[in-house]
């Protein structure tokens, strides 16, 4: 009788052993499908490398792993996925991306005392989403400020036109331009809002051309920003194009029409001899055959921050929970991350220098200006 049940017992036992295998899990809400899925692939490459390094270094007693959920870069999908990560998977730490998604999940993060870390969204509001929401990326106010200072002071541009996607990020960039240009003696002469689903921009290009700007600031992301750049150029807009860190995606860096465009990112010296940065750059290069970008470094850093905090908590014999991670972050002055030693501001946002780059077809851009952290 027992013999007949043996296969069943064996399967049950193996399932039990598998499910109880020790693993420290964190979550990630990335766009894995839809028009912004290209960002998901980029973010994952950085996060996965950090997991590999943490496990190779045995930073934690259990292996670290990431549960990926598809946010499609949409707030609604993001909340559904966050609910699963918090209530079903019970992870203490979630990687987030995109301003809209990050804002949508922040309430749940706060309520469930789950740390949410953004490495991709740059809306300035992201600094004000509660103490459980952290940013390992400089926000748009820092990026826009650095770019306009360079454009006005060094290039002599005075007339700016903004083409922005109608969402919290686009609106925040518009506010930032309206605030930062007048003190420098420049002006935002026109701003064109577009729907996130829009694909036809020949009319927008005509409006932009008629405003005769020195610089066109594009505040969009994903496939849409490439379409905007192509159609602006195809339709006779000759003004310099500029944007924020969303321009650091490989497709745009290789786009012919984007050559000469300016964009901003967190300043990281990829040739640094700092051991953490060097290991990250070397291993990324070995695995992908190309240089990393700041987005990849941001999500590497986001995972590394967790590994460092969790390591400290384990050493103190404390449980790895969102509340303990937050307390430990507050107790830690500096973190050794890719790019050097950095600290979090009181609002949970990393302070980092910003660099202005020019799209030169190399895949990662040419640094033309570095603005120190302030």
């Amino acid at each position: 009788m027992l013999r007949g049940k043996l296969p069943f017992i064996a399967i049950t036992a193996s399932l039990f052993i598998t499910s109880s295998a020790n693993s420290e899990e964190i979550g990630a809400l990335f766009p894995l499908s839809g028009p912004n899925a290209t960002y998901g692939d980029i973010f994952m490459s950085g996060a996965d490398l950090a997991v590999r390094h943490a496990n190779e270094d045995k930073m934690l007693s259990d292996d670290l792993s990431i549960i990926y959920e598809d946010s499609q870069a949409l707030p609604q999908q993001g909340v559904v996925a966050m609910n699963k990560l918090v209530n079903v998977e019970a992870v203490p730490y979630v990687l987030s991306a995109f301003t809209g998604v990050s804002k949508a999940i922040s309430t749940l993060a706060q309520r469930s005392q789950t740390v949410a870390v953004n490495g991709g969204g740059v809306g300035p509001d992201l600094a004000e989403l509660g103490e459980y929401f952290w940013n390992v990326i400089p926000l748009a106010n820092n990026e826009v400020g650095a770019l306009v200072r360079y454009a006005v002071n060094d290039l002599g541009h005075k007339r700016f036109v903004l083409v922005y996607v109608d969402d919290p990020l686009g609106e925040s960039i518009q506010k930032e331009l309206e605030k930062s240009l007048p003190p420098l003696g420049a002006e935002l002469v026109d701003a064109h809002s577009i729907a996130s689903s829009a694909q036809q921009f020949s009319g927008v290009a005509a409006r932009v051309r008629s405003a005769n700007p020195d610089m066109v600031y594009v505040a969009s992301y994903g496939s849409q920003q490439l379409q905007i750049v192509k159609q602006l150029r195809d339709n006779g807009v000759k003004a310099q194009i500029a944007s924020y860190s969303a321009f650091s995606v490989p497709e745009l860096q290789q786009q012919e029409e984007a050559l000469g465009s300016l964009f901003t990112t967190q300043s990281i010296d990829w040739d640094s001899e700092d051991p953490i940065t060097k290991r990250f750059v070397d291993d990324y290069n070995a695995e992908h055959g190309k240089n990393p970008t700041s987005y990849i470094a941001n999500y590497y850093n986001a995972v590394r921050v967790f590994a460092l905090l969790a390591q400290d908590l384990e050493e103190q014999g404390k449980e790895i929970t969102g509340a303990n991670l937050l307390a430990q972050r507050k107790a830690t002055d500096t973190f050794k991350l890719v790019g050097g030693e950095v600290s979090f501001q009181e609002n949970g946002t990393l302070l980092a220098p910003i660099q202005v780059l020019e799209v030169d077809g190399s895949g990662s851009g040419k640094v033309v200006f570095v603005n120190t952290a302030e």
Partner: protein
Amino acid sequence: MLFLQLLANGLQVGAIYALTAAGFSLIFGSTKIFHFAHGATFAIAAYLFHFALAGLGMHWTFAVLLAAVSAVVFGILLDRLMYAPIQRHEGSFFTVFVASFGIGIVVQNLLGSVFGRGFMSVATPLSNSVEVIPGIYLSPLNGLAIVSAIICFAALHLFLTRTFVGKGMRALSENPELVRTFGLSPRRLSTYAFALGSLLVVPGAIFTAAGTGINPAVGHHVMLISLAATIVGGIGSLRGAACAGLLIGVAENLAMWKLGTQWSEAITFAILFFFIIFKPSGFFGRQTVS
């Protein structure tokens, strides 16, 4: 000058909308099948054109041919392998719609998996605008899109009015039973409608791949415009769908003359609501008696 520029842009966009809307309207009018996957046909044609040109290095004529054949084959296969079985089992209008919607999603994801989810465009000097008169920029693609649309509509008109199959397709939309009485096969005519309707998206797909660029979700927008144009033009009216497509394209662009750019897409729905409320039969649709 801005008005003229927007009008010129609108005519090009409208020509593309008119062709895709006419394709959808032809299929819907003849077969009464809500072919939501019409947008997927558009995306397939655009991607294969791009792949043939940029990936395989084919001459553009072969790339156009490949796009056309793939669109027609996809349309016929859907009709034969999906819609026909559903209709045989007397599936409801809603069943057909859900099946077609599902195909659209599957195709979008397949294209993303095979060709990547990012933006693609055909690099061609034809999309570069030149200043023809001070303040007015036109690209060769502008003219080509309009000329192609005129040629396609002329050919379609001749086909539907002068050929036996064309007349049969028109009759199918009127009275399928009578078509059968005359010895014609509604099933076969339905396949012809799918082939022709799918073929009509090809010029738009090619001009979109070269002009605005494509991503796997490009079909959704096409479907939205086709649906709006079919209603505005009058359900079952090919001429109406074509005129409505042109109207929507021009209105989308001219809206930016005085209104903000964010109103560009909303204007499609404003036109749609206007017609639903004040002229439910559309441009050339039949009056209905309740």
